[in-house]
């Protein structure tokens, strides 16, 4: 099933073929994990969210429109799930800001998978750069973080973001503007 198209896999899943879903997971776990990681800022939580998002995707798969691409749909499910988690987290008073913004084991994780044909110095600087960006993202309010994710990493249009978050396009624009301004201020000094 390695060479099956997404469409073939999904139609097999909807016919009850669980092995086909295992291939969907293998194919998209990295992508979905990265969505969750950017939004949650914590590896372990991102892994849990990815699992949960796959369960939701499996349950929702019978209603998936086969004429549409699978990847954006899966990313959307992951985004919504993380958004729910973040909102719940915010509602829990025992979670402190320092816990939410604490950096995790990214350096260790990256060291295990060095990018090929990149000098060690370049690797270190990329790692530092990555950490700086993740840290800046973590410090953004949730609603700003989500629009940055949808615009810059999932490359949705303003209208698509508005539809995904069920907010007016004007709100998307103003949230994006503020989010970028905050990110710019945090990252500019370190660029």
């Amino acid at each position, binding site marked *: 099933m390695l060479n099956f198209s997404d469409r073939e896999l999904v139609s097999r899943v909807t016919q009850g073929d669980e092995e086909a879903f295992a291939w969907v997971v*293998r194919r998209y776990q990295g992508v979905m994990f990265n969505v969750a990681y950017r939004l949650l800022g914590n590896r372990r939580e991102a892994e849990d969210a*990815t699992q949960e998002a796959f369960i939701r995707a499996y349950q929702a798969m019978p209603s998936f429109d086969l004429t549409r691409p699978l990847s954006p749909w899966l990313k959307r499910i992951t985004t919504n799930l993380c958004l729910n988690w973040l909102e719940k987290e915010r509602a829990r008073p025992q979670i402190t800001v320092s816990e939410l913004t604490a950096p995790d084991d990214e350096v260790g994780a990256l060291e295990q998978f060095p990018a090929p044909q990149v000098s060690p110095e370049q690797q270190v600087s990329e790692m530092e750069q990555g950490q700086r960006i*993740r840290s800046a993202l973590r410090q953004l309010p949730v609603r700003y973080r989500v629009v940055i994710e949808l615009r810059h990493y999932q490359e949705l249009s303003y209208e698509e973001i508005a539809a995904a978050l069920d907010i007016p396009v004007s709100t998307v624009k103003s949230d*994006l503007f503020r989010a970028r301004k905050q990110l710019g201020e945090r*990252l500019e000094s370190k*660029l």
Partner: protein
Amino acid sequence: MAEHIDEWVFYEYLDEVLDAAAAQSVATHLASCPSCQEQLARQKRLFATLGSLPEAPLTIDLTPKVMGRLRPQPKPFLPGWWRWVLLGEGIAAAALLLLLLPTIRPLIGGVSFTFPAAEISNQLLRFWVEMGSVLTLTWPAPSLNSAVPFIIWAVILGLGILVGLIGNSLLLPPLLRSLSPTPHRGQHA
């Protein structure tokens, strides 16, 4: 020189959502305004920085975990509440027995009353036994208390059947479900 361009306009310029005329006027202004050029450059740098975030590698394969969660653990033979149904049935039966005890006692004591149906079955049994062997068996006739009207017996019997049916209809479906193989998907659809 025209007024400087607002920051948000540059963002829309970079997002390519400005209409042609607006984009043209931004470009025209930029050509002659170093200050706005610097502003745009800053915003472009931010976009580039965000775009440079490397994909974080997933260090574990989540497939077994996800697939494990899709296949729920096999359900126990009977659901948890079946004990309570059985207990309820037991209590109901005991209560019924207690209520009927005064009625039943004379039966055990041997006050004889020949119930027609019992008499017939008795005759049939005796017939078969006598046909089948030279032995002559004396079969004590089951007796019911003649003091209890037939209608009471009918009500008791009806109640018994009702309790049995309700109990079994509660117990049987999960029992049958647990015996027949069910596809996994049904539980997630």
